[in-house]
């Protein structure tokens, strides 16, 4: 009796819990006037607190309605529509009419790589950008397209992280944001992804957004979602071609000393006997033609008139003209692309193929084929099968080496080609010696021909890659679905560096290791080319299982997902090479790597470099994750997220210590409240999140790790060294973030925007800690002793000034503020000034209370009436250079950060009938950089880096009394004044980096044809990029993004797109 009662109760409970039959449902399809299905339409039933978006087929399904409920349909670019539900209505076809001519931005849901979160439900800090806006920037690399359009900071300095989101979160660890391609992290070459395949990109900025990625998400996450195929009754085919031509960069931009001044300087140094010890010395040091002529004149081999004539010729030569003519050329890039997007009943697919061909200013070439097929198929009711295949094959070939803006053997008066068109030989060692040794046949030609090197010293990289993914989604019951996804990434890089016998490197190496004797030359490096081959192989398996659950009880709604994933990545490098390579007979020579060889000129014993390298790496991860979002009435939102990772990198003890990464968030959709006027606010949301993410560094381990390092030169046996000291106290780096945000949209999205204010604490950072020398590890041992703190603001505003049928004008403003400081770093006790100078370029000399890249300089007061530098010591003017070099760090001047405190962009977009015009402005402010200037000690002797950016200041130095009013560059003295160690690193060389740049301007003509004809639309566009600086703080010609080297030249693109 009791058992039956029990069973009935259970059955009743089950029935009540799982049975929905009593409530009303309404489903249907939403399409536009052309019949095309519309995904992502907001379907809202305010009375029931239901919010939904139509799926990829434009289908929506509402449950739990009652008679009289208002069902509204909203979609950006279309007029709002609503119907009143009455019982009995089961299906409904909805047609939305377009509101304005062209849609620039579709309000898309945020993709996290695990789920799509519509804006209504989102509580974390997300930023989204779709394909239409990505087209505003022309590039064959997807990440570059984000410049000027998002909160990502692009840093052009090669030594700092190139791409950061909300600043830098670590000192020794990885600084790159995690990049997700569809579902899984992508570790391959980012250039293998064709940007035209990308549907949208979501940036996950705070802990709530990113904590689902756990221990790899501290630097933020970039989720790239590829096109899956549009819905609709007809297929669409798109074909596009983009041709880009780029100007030759401005070779006169680097501040290099001019020929006339250099000749004067060389004369003066000659008169002082600086070059005397180099004449005919054992090392056969190179002397410039100026110096050689002066010696010849002194020895009586050259008369005065010829000397003056020759020096005048040299002084009047500027080789930049020839470099621009013979070595540089306009760049020429082509991007061709065709895609097919289609849907049938039950399946959608997207297929594309692309061909890119780029030739750079220096004739380096890139050729890329890419292909993609994304196929989604409904196997059964409730069972979907998704497949994706991405193939790419790229070949890169090197070009010329470029203008040698810094080089010992390069002088601004050394041309490339003479009047008869013959290549002028350049010398890296004494001209007479090289010529005579060549003539006698004892050595190979030791001269260098810069223009020929491109074809004789070649590097080639071939990168085939494949990404194959397959997944199943199964709806177990209403609201509960299970998903399994597997992806295989495979990428090879085949590197070939071929240095033929004719290349300077090879001839130089052979000569250097030649031993001269009476019986003829004995060559320790055989005659022939030097060929180096390398193969890098990356293989990655990813498998994820996930359960997703969406449930509503009256006013309450719950979305949850949970699952686990496994990832195995193997990366290996095999590299080898041969000397004496003959491509004709495919043979090579033998080389002795074991015994040292005497350097022909220096007399030292050296080893012939062994090109063999073998490396292999296996990274395995196992993770579990959970994420849930709850909302009531569509107004009050709560989310929670957690993830735990384990890896093979750390030893089991460390794995046990891993705390899960977690986050909490709350949100309030005020626009759904009755007290907020519906007509005023389409969206008004407040949100607050707090959570923890991690930064996992696979190279840190709890166990002693040794590395094998070849053969020991003394013991002649294989040797190993300790690569990592066992330290069971090591932990993960963590980042806690608290983020408060406001999203709003007013007057039917005429004005909308987002504001985020955040604070971050980076803790347990790996940093070198001063070590007790007696425990045998190095002076510094890496421990988790660092911490940093950051605060920031992100604000974006979109104003649609004019929003009519045929005329639209909108402006998008984006503002970012990020300030971070090192709060704990206990390894830097050195307070001596000369050890604490900082250019903000490299991660050195980290100090508490500063950012990672501060600019710290010696004080500079002025020049005195003799052109000497006056600095400051303890607040008083002083020229005691030695004391200033050794003074306490308090005597130094802190000028600011080298990374911008404020930055942002402004996007303008105007459309009128069929025309569109847009512009992107980038700006950065609140930072400084050090201007390179002349270094007399380097310029006046024969030491390397004789020229280099900044040496042009030589002409602007103090020369006579009175000049101190116009210049800060001290006088030139020989012997060199000790101020030469101070001035180039003083505050006089620091400049503000604030600037506004016009990044790109584009003009588009859109010919929308009859939808029933074969060709539906034709678009023609023109895009100009790198138009230059509109404003910079201070005067001067330097572009703060490129203080040394050469700045980016302007490029012009023509873009043609057809849609069938």
């Amino acid at each position: 009796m009791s058992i039956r009662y029990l069973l009935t109760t259970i059955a009743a409970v089950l029935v009540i819990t799982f049975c929905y039959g009593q409530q009303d449902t309404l489903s249907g399809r939403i399409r536009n006037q052309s019949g095309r299905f519309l995904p992502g339409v907001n379907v809202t039933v305010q009375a029931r607190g239901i919010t939904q978006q139509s799926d990829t087929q434009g289908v929506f399904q509402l449950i739990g309605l009652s008679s009289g409920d208002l069902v509204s349909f909203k979609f950006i670019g279309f007029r709002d529509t609503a119907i009143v539900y009455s019982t009995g209505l089961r299906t409904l076809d909805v047609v939305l009419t377009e509101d304005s001519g062209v849609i620039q931005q579709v309000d898309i849901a945020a993709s996290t790589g695990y789920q799509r979160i519509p804006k209504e439900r989102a509580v974390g800090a997300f930023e989204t950008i779709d394909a239409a806006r990505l087209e505003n920037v022309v590039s064959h690399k997807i990440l570059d397209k984000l410049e000027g359009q998002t909160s990502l900071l692009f840093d052009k300095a090669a030594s700092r992280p190139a791409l950061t989101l909300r600043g830098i979160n670590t000192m020794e660890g990885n600084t790159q944001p995690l990049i997700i391609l569809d579902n899984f992290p992508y570790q391959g070459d980012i250039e293998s992804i064709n940007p035209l395949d990308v549907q949208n990109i979501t940036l996950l900025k705070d802990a709530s957004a990113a904590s689902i990625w756990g221990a790899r998400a501290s630097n933020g996450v970039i989720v790239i979602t590829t096109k899956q195929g549009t819905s609709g009754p007809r297929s669409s085919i798109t074909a596009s071609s983009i041709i880009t031509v780029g100007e030759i960069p401005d070779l006169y931009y680097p501040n290099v000393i001019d020929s006339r001044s250099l000749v004067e300087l060389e004369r003066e140094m000659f008169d002082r006997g600086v070059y005397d010890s180099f004449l005919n010395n054992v090392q056969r040091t190179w002397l410039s033609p100026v110096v050689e002529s002066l010696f010849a004149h002194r020895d009586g081999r050259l008369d005065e008139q010829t000397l003056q004539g020759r020096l005048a010729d040299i002084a009047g030569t500027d080789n930049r003209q020839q470099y621009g003519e013979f070595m540089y050329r306009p760049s020429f890039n082509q991007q061709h692309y065709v895609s097919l997007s289609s849907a049938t009943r039950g399946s959608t697919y997207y297929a594309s193929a692309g061909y890119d061909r780029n030739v750079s200013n220096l004739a380096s070439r890139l050729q890329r084929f890419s292909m993609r097929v994304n196929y989604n198929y409904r196997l059964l009711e409730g069972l979907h099968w998704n497949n994706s295949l991405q193939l790419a094959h790229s070949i890169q070939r090197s070009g010329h080496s470029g203008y040698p803006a810094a080089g010992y053997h390069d002088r601004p008066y050394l041309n490339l080609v003479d009047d008869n068109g013959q290549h002028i030989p350049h010398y890296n060692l004494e001209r007479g010696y090289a010529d005579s040794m060549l003539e006698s046949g004892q050595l190979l030609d030791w001269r260098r021909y810069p223009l020929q090197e491109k074809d004789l010293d070649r590097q080639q990289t071939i990168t085939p890659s494949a990404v194959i993914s397959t997944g199943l989604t199964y709806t177990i019951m209403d609201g509960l679905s299970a998903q399994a996804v597997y992806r295989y990434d495979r990428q090879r890089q085949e590197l070939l560096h071929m240095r033929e016998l004719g290349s300077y490197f090879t001839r130089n190496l052979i000569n250097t290791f030649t031993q001269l004797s009476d019986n003829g030359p004995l060559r320790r490096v055989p005659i022939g080319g030097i060929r180096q081959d390398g193969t890098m192989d990356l293989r990655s398996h990813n498998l994820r299982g996930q359960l997703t659950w969406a449930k509503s009880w009256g006013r309450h709604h719950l979305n949850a997902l949970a699952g686990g994933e496994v990832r195995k990545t193997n990366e290996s490098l095999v590299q080898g090479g041969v000397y004496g390579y003959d491509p004709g007979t495919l043979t090579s020579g033998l080389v002795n790597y074991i015994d040292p060889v005497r350097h022909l000129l220096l007399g030292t014993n050296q080893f012939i470099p062994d090109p063999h390298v073998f490396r292999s790496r296996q990274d395995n991860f196992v993770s579990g994750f959970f994420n849930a979002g709850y909302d009531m009435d569509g107004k009050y939102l709560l989310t929670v997220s957690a993830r735990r990772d384990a890896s093979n990198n750390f030893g089991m003890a460390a794995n046990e210590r891993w705390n899960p990464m977690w986050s909490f968030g709350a949100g309030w959709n005020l626009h759904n409240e009755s007290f907020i006027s519906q007509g005023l606010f389409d969206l008004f949301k407040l949100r607050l999140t707090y959570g923890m993410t991690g930064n996992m560094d696979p190279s840190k381990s709890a166990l002693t790790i040794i590395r094998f390092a070849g053969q020991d030169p003394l013991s002649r046996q294989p040797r190993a060294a300790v690569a990592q000291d066992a330290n069971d106290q090591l932990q993960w780096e963590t980042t806690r973030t608290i983020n408060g945000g406001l999203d709003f949209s007013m007057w039917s999205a005429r004005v909308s925007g987002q504001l985020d204010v955040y604070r971050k604490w980076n803790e347990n950072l790996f940093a070198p800690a001063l070590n007790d020398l007696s425990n045998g590890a190095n002076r510094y041992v890496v421990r988790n002793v660092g911490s940093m703190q950051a605060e920031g603001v992100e604000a974006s505003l979109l104003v649609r000034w004019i929003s009519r049928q045929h005329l639209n004008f909108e402006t998008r403003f984006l503002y970012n503020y990020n300030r971070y400081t090192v709060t704990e770093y206990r390894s830097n006790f050195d307070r001596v000034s000369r050890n604490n100078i900082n250019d903000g370029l490299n991660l050195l000399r980290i100090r508490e209370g500063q950012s990672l890249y501060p600019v710290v300089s010696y004080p500079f007061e002025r020049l005195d009436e003799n052109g000497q530098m006056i600095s400051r010591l303890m607040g008083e003017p002083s020229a005691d250079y030695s004391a200033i070099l050794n003074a306490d760090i308090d005597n130094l001047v802190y000028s600011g950060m080298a990374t911008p405190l404020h930055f942002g962009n402004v996007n303008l977009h105007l459309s009128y009938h069929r025309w569109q015009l847009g512009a992107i402005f980038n700006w950065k402010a609140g930072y400084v950089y050090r201007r390179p200037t002349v270094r007399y000690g380097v310029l006046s002797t024969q030491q390397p880096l004789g020229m280099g950016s900044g040496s042009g200041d030589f002409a602007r130095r103090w020369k006579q009394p009175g000049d101190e009013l116009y210049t800060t560059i001290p006088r030139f003295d020989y012997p060199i004044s000790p101020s030469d160690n101070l001035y180039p690193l003083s505050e006089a060389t620091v400049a503000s980096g604030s600037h506004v740049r016009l990044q790109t301007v584009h003009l588009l003509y859109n010919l929308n044809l009859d939808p029933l004809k074969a060709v539906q639309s034709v678009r023609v566009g023109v895009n100009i990029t790198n138009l230059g600086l509109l404003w910079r703080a201070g005067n001067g010609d330097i572009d703060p993004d490129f203080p040394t080297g050469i700045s980016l030249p302007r490029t012009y693109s023509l873009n043609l797109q057809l849609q069938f």
Partner: protein
Amino acid sequence: MNDIKIKVKSIYLVALLLSTFSGCSKILEEKSDQSLKQMETIDDLQALLNNSGIFNDVPAGMGEVCSDNVYFVPDFINAQPEFDQNLYVWHAPNSSADGLLADAWNNCYLAIYYSNLVIEQSQRISLAHTGDVNRLEQIKGWAHFLRAYYHLALVSTWRGPWTAQRDQMLAIPIRVVSDINAPNIRNTLGEVYHQVEQDMLYAIARLPSSVSIVTAPDKAAGYALASRFYLLKGDYEKTRLYADSTLSLKNSIMDYATLDQSANFPFTAMNAEVIFHVYRGINLVNRALTDGVSPELHALYGGGDLRRELYFRRNPNGTPRFKGLYNGTLGIFTGPTTSEVVLNQVEALWRTGQIEESRTALEKFLRHRYRSEFDLPGYVSGAPIDSLIKVERRKELAFRDIRWQDMQRYHYTDGDEYIMIRELRAEKYSFDVANFNIPYPENFLVFNPLYR
């Protein structure tokens, strides 16, 4: 009913998904970077010991700079860095000028750290892994030898020889574990010498009878280290015993008359006398080779002494420059040699009362160091045995980082006094053997206040 079926199905699915992750522990055990590895096999341990940069290339010479073999003219020393100046006038360095003193200290402890890693791991390696018991025992011996060698190098430089009255003096930390987080305790001079002795004897029992290249120690190296050790300990009986054992294995003494006096470096690295190869000097001792040879030292080499031409040549300004370096190039050599062992034997014979045997052994040795026409027997029998031995030892082992220890031994054992006066920046500093010990690196004291 359908719903219950669905529920069951869903539970099954979840269980299926979860079970795929249960067998995941293997995945977490795979190695990551495969040129990096944990120490697992004998070959791994061997490779660590083969690292000459760790074990054979260790800066030394602090003692030499403090001894009477070195003298700098004021003009020279006034221009040197502050750290070098402090050492020269027997003062403690200040923290910012710690410099190379800390490097020398650290390099010795680095060698000890590597030895400890090998010793600990060798205890963990099971026989199944190795297949070669002998080889494992040799590796253990080798590592113990190095640990003994470098503890001795540290304690003899920083605290000098052992004497009974100084047995309880605070010395240097003994490190016998590799854990970098393990703290140091106060170790006395006696404890350190005891530790060295134990490691050394353990090693001697296991070292191989010969090696192909003397960057690795063989039994002769073990015996040679022991003779050096017991001399420092003042146990002359054992000194003699081990010196004899060394010489029974390796006893070749080069005839200096056959070497090229005009060469810049007359001696090649790992020559016939070298038993174990260790080299490198701190900056100041390298400068001393060229600019700081004590004139008093140079004057000791008389007319018939071949070492006068082989060890020295003239600077352009006439001062002597030392070139008798057993590593074939610039940088001092500090490893044990047969010549050093012979002199240990000679001194041990003398101190144990066997004067005649001592003179005989000394004469036999000096035959290789003096010209054939020189009256060697007259010289050897003519002088008092103690001063003869001390002078010849000083001349032979100049710039081998041994003089400093000898000076202290002679002071504590024989009561010898040394008067050294050095000038720096117009101030004069005098020296007192009994009251000066080379100071600890400042960085070390920051972490080990027990040693202040």
